[in-house]
């Protein structure tokens, strides 16, 4: 995670140079470093999922946002992030719902193919998940809601990761001004940066 420090440092430096405030830079940078060092989501809280559930989740992450010319959800640690976020931010009910849907996917795969979900080809994995999204038998609303929750979390984890935010989309730390109308082609992607997440 130390590799992420320079980004904030760079942003702050740019900001401070703009402010002509380099005298106080040390104070801000110390805060930045302290804040960044305290972040270790991957190892801070684990223990919601079984190894099997984690393997299914990892495969789903890659199905939702695969590696292309930019990193995919697995590359940026979404598997670990989803587990962390469920444990820390969400209710016990939501945690259990998400565990249940991973188990349902695992069981469906085992029944239909005799194989664990993560061992299926990507096409077969996606086909199964598409059934879930279409609520085709044996999937129902019971799995649909929690799955969408899980999917949203994967997407959230990806686009709020540094690679997802800065390589896949456009991250504007300091836009500088608001322009109400620009050709979309001039920007070329959605913004990852938001006022409220």
């Amino acid at each position, binding site marked *: 995670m130390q590799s*992420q420090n320079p*980004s*904030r440092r760079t942003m702050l430096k740019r*900001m401070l140079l*703009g*402010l002509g405030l380099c005298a106080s830079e040390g*104070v*801000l940078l110390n*805060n*930045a470093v302290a*804040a*960044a060092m*305290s*972040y*270790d*989501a991957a190892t*801070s809280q684990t223990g919601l999922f079984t190894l099997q559930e984690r393997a299914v989740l990892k495969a789903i992450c890659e*199905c*939702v*946002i695969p590696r292309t010319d930019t990193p995919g959800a697995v590359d940026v640690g979404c598997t670990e992030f989803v587990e*962390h*976020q469920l444990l*820390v*931010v969400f209710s016990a009910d939501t945690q259990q719902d998400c565990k249940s849907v991973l188990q349902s996917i695992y069981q469906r795969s085992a029944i239909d193919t005799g194989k664990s979900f993560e061992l299926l080809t*990507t096409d077969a994995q*996606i086909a199964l*998940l598409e059934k879930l*999204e279409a609520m085709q038998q044996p999937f129902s609303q019971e799995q649909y809601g929690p799955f*969408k*929750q899980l999917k*949203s979390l994967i*997407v*959230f984890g990806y*686009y*709020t990761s*540094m690679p997802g*935010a800065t390589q896949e*989309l456009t*991250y*504007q*730390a300091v*836009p*500088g*001004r*608001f*322009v*109400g*109308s*620009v*050709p*979309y*082609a001039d920007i070329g*992607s*959605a913004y*990852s*940066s*938001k*006022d*409220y*997440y």
Partner: protein
Amino acid sequence: MTQHRYVNESAEVYDAIVVGSGITGGWAAKELCEKGLKTLMVERGRVVEHRKDYTTEAKPVWEYPNRMKVAKKLIDEEYAIQQQCYAFHDGTKHFFSSDKDYPYHTEPDAPFSWIRANQLGGKSLLWHRQSYRMSTFDFEANAKDGHGNDWPIRYEDLAPWYDYVERFVGISGNADGLPQLPDGIFQPPFEMTAPERDFTALMKDKHPDKPVIMSRCAHLTAPQKIQVDLGRMQCMARNECQKGCSFGAYFSTQSATLPAAARTGNLYIAPNSVVESVIYSEQTQKAVGVRVIDNDTLEQREYFGKMVFLCASTLGSTQIMLNSTSKRFPTGIANSSGVLGHYLMDHNYNAYVTASIEGYEDEYYIGRRPSSLYIPNFHFEPKRYHKAFKRGYALAGSAARADWQGLGASDGFGTSFKNMLHNPGKWGIGLGAQGEMLPNRDNQVQLHPTKKDKWGMPQLSINCKWSENETLMMEHAAEVSVKMFQDAGFGDIHANVNYAPPGLAIHEVGSARMGRDPKESVLNGYNQAHDVPNLFVTDGASYCSTGVGNPSITFMALTARAVDYAVKEFNAGRL
């Protein structure tokens, strides 16, 4: 720039004591200091230094362990109420007060969300910065329709003070020439997006009584010398203001009034000083200071002043007054009328309508705008009232493109799903109502007879409910918004009317109201207590009605005007 000095123990008699350091306290201190009065600002919370203490500013989302979300355990234990505020997240939570440390009482059938920000700068660090003058119609409303008492002032009394504060604050906005929303001293407005521009033009034709304008907000878009001299700069369109802004681009105590007060050399600050009561002298029949409890050590101490300005927020000031009992004022200082604590009001934000907009795929924007579209109150005088309810509401909202967060649960997988999220989605638009609440004596705050907080202060007991008038108004606001969207040709229209309790607009006002008659009000037209000539209350507690617009700019104008009056009276030996 001359620095302010922090004070702990002090036997000095200051020219003035200001309780609170938020929007109102900052203004009171600035004006008093600039008029040459040695002023002690008493703040119950910790010190927050401009820039240095904006510890989350510019920290990218990926550096937050929970990506800006707050841990559930922490919310459950300390922030169940505060987290209802839209601006509460992992990057701002340190500027909100823990519910555990700041308890208050409500009856089960009358919940109230009291959002707190107890630190130097108070809610000026967290506010939404929308700035609207109250109009002639707002000041006349109580007299004309008979709800509440008549404001002792009119728009003309406050207009020069609006000019004065706006020039200093820096308000971005457009002079729209509307009778219900007086123009002010503006810096250039923020731009509209393309669909917003077209919606505005279309509504001019289809709903000429409901002009759509760009909102007015306390952001510098063309900084003037008065602001640059304080180290303030142009807004960078980050719209992450509540983390603190080192550019000083939005108005806060830290960015503006505090450095202005400090450079006079007259400002002293007593942080971590929880004001327990105003000390009243039966002999002189004046306020002589404040009794405080140390925020950390819980030790008592006193500060003395020749006048006291209560600017501790509507409920904060009211709590202090109710707790300031004496032989003459057994129910709270300056409460000979018995009105203190009554007529609490808030704005009602309980209607919101969304829609989707076809087209404009080639249109996008740069930056995150701290303003919105705004449709000022169009029921602004009795002859324009709707038959089902009195007073009116404004509508505010924006059009923007859907993003990965909103689209995250969409169907699809793989590269095509990733490609879909790579681009922004359809345009959507929302309009939310901001409705007036009628003054009602039954909406009251009192001191709880037995419950106390950790400083030994009796807890506030809040009993405040919407009336049918407000509920009907919200239903109407939703209907009107739907109609406007239909007339604009928008699709997927969803109307939401909810019944969230008062408090969440964070526009609580009215519990120590002004008035001409000392028998039915606490303060006179200069925010001076009828009963105690050297006691002033200039925050929202002094309001007689909510009006429709966001109130902070009016707090500022009232405060500057009150200080001007107080200092003249002081210099003439009448305080």
